[in-house]
């Protein structure tokens, strides 16, 4: 495979300006991420210490193999909800390595609101369990939750993808022969009691862990019975009387060494085999991505320059290099794994859509996972393109993409607008993981276009009522819409709402993709099959 020849001049003023802009954005990102992970009010840390419990990060350290990577999802979930008071949505999720195996981890963060489940907490847990199901990853639950956050119960409990889905997914995992362990390091009350009880293995930590459908106050209110936490649902009672608990752990350290021992005796399932090559670092420095991503989101850039800083040896075998040139397609390796890459170099036209559909079929046929790099403002509009059947060709691309059986991975590298987001495997299209870069934007259209469209509608409505608007009045309609929209399309809004699996520092993209691909190979790849292509 040939190396991409970079055209980037690292001394050019544009490069330096971009580099400075991206560095500033990343400084903000890393600061916010560090705060969400580690910064808590003193009283919350004091409470954990008083309860004799370890923090969630210390628990992960006891569980995971030392020196191995942990692919953490949605570190900034809920960063724009609940007045920013629920960092990470009060739960840590991700893929880590335990006894040399890839496992999915769901760990309540009791330093945030006692680990209560907010609507976005539930969304983050359900997403993690979906990841486990799709990739056939064993799950380790670290339970320590105050239960559903009652003032927002309507967003936690009733709907299809809310609370019940956590337990439903646990059942589906078990049914699919994917093992689960729950380590109970706090209270599992009401619905929360089903997390350990639906797990194949559960471990209760003496003194701090407890499982019950109704806690002591609720029991007293309901029946008048007065009973203590330990008698009602403590480790001793459950492991020796009720059989609800499997293992009693004397300490947190004991609990996590038991969990590791359980993992080590699981049957090791063979992984799916795809093409691989010896791993090679990119020839070009990934840090140069900072200078390549334009500081102005509207400025076009060559996605090959991005690929050259992500893939092994910066080597890329480009497919149809002279056809449909606004979409770059080709093969490369990431940490040795062979992948088919689709990357936007402009708007999607008829030819680029057909090229995409064709290339994806090719990758499905030879079982090559697909990686999408999005910088897409949409499919081309206008009479000429409608006559050529742009909607029909876009449908072919969607049919091939949505019908793909190989694992797909998406990086929203810059713009992700409109149907382009769909064609390029946006959130609704089952990418195994989907990450965003901090300056990226996602929405039906750009902020300016949306503000103008909405202002136009309003102006015409007023004109029909016989009112003429001054420029100031038009601006007064437009400006608030623009401000709101600008915020809504930002990566921080997306990541807060868990429309993605997290914001990435661009230099970490290569590793995040490699871990995602490696995890995906725990699941088999089906034979290719599709719906009907509108030819």
């Amino acid at each position, binding site marked *: 495979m040939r190396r991409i020849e970079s055209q980037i001049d690292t001394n050019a003023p544009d490069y330096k300006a971009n580099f400075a802009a991206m560095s500033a954005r990343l400084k903000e990102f890393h600061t916010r991420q560090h705060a969400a992970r580690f910064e808590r009010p003193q009283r919350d840390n004091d409470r954990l210490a008083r309860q004799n419990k370890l923090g969630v990060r210390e628990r992960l350290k006891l569980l995971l193999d030392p020196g191995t990577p942990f692919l953490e999802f949605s570190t900034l979930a809920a960063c724009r909800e609940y007045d920013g008071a629920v960092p990470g949505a009060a739960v840590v999720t991700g893929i880590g390595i335990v006894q040399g195996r890839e496992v999915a981890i769901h760990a309540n963060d009791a330093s945030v609101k006692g680990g209560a489940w907010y609507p976005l907490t539930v969304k983050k847990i359900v997403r993690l369990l979906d990841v486990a199901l799709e990739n056939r990853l064993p799950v380790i639950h670290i339970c320590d939750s105050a239960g559903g956050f009652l003032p927002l119960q309507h967003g936690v409990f009733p709907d299809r993808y809310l609370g019940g889905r956590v337990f439903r997914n646990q059942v589906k995992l078990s049914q699919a022969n994917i093992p689960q362990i729950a380590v109970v390091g706090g209270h599992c009350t009401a619905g929360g009691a089903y997390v350990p009880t639906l797990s194949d293995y559960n471990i209760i930590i003496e003194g701090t862990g407890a499982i019950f459908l109704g806690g002591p106050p609720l029991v007293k209110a309901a029946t008048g019975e007065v009973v203590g936490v330990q008698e009602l649902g403590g480790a001793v009672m459950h492991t020796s009387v009720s059989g609800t608990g499997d293992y009693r752990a004397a300490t947190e350290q004991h609990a996590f060494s038991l969990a590791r021992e359980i993992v080590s005796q699981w049957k090791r399932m063979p992984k799916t085999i795809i093409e691989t090559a010896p791993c090679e670092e990119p020839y070009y420095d990934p840090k140069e991505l900072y200078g390549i991503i334009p500081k*102005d989101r509207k*400025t076009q850039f060559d996605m090959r320059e991005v690929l050259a800083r992500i893939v092994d*040896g910066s080597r890329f075998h480009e497919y149809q290099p002279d056809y449909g040139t*606004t979409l770059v397609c080709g093969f490369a390796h990431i940490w040795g794994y062979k992948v088919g890459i689709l990357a936007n170099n*402009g*708007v999607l036209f008829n030819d680029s859509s057909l090229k995409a559909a064709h290339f994806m079929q090719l990758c499905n046929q030879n079982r090559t996972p697909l990686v999408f790099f999005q910088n897409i403002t949409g499919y*081309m509009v206008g009479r000429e393109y409608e006559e050529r059947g742009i909607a029909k060709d876009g449908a072919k691309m969607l049919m091939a993409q949505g019908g793909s059986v190989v694992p797909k991975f998406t990086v929203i590298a810059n*713009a992700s*607008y409109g149907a382009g987001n769909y064609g390029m495997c946006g959130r609704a299209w089952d990418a195994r993981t989907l990450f965003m870069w901090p300056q990226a934007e996602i929405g039906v259209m750009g902020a300016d276009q949306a503000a103008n469209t909405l202002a136009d509608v309003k102006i015409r409505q007023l004109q029909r009522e016989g009112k003429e608007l001054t420029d100031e009045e038009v601006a007064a309609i437009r400006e608030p819409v623009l401000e709101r929209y600008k915020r809504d399309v930002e990566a921080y809004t997306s990541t807060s709402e868990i429309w993605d699996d997290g914001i990435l520092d661009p230099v970490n993209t290569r590793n995040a993709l490699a871990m995602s691909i490696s995890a995906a190979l725990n699941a088999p790849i089906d034979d290719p099959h599709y719906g009907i292509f509108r030819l």
Partner: protein
Amino acid sequence: MRRIFQIGGEETECWLAHDGSRFVLNTPEGVLPCRLDPTTSPGGFVLRARGLVRDVRLAAGPEATFVHMDGRTYEVGRVDPAERLAGSDGGASDDRLVAPMPGVVVSVAVKPGDIVAAGQPLLVIESMKLETTLAAPRDGVVAEIPFAAGDSFGLKDVLAQLAPEED
């Protein structure tokens, strides 16, 4: 894929194969049985070919392998055949910059008569929420810039024209 190597400035094509009992090197001059056995010293090998036996030391880099033999070092460069055989970069480049899609001119950086270098930005266009910089395809002189900032243009309209190259 046959391999192309560069040794001392000269290119040679060859391909290592196994004929069932031994390794053979297919060269333009014919088939050459050969054998390479590692010794205990790092990078050390014994090379047997054409009835000769030689001690060699090898160091492989990303672009070339260095072979030390008989007190001399040879650099054996690897040439990518697909790249090497692609010929020139498509012959003379086009003198015209044609609109890749309909849009609006955002800014124009040059005027007719200006001398420009390959890769130098000529104008910036906007279409579908994207700003694209169009650069000179080669060194030359600007002959024509038909649109000014703010003008709309259609698909395949000529946005810039360089003066023909004189031989």
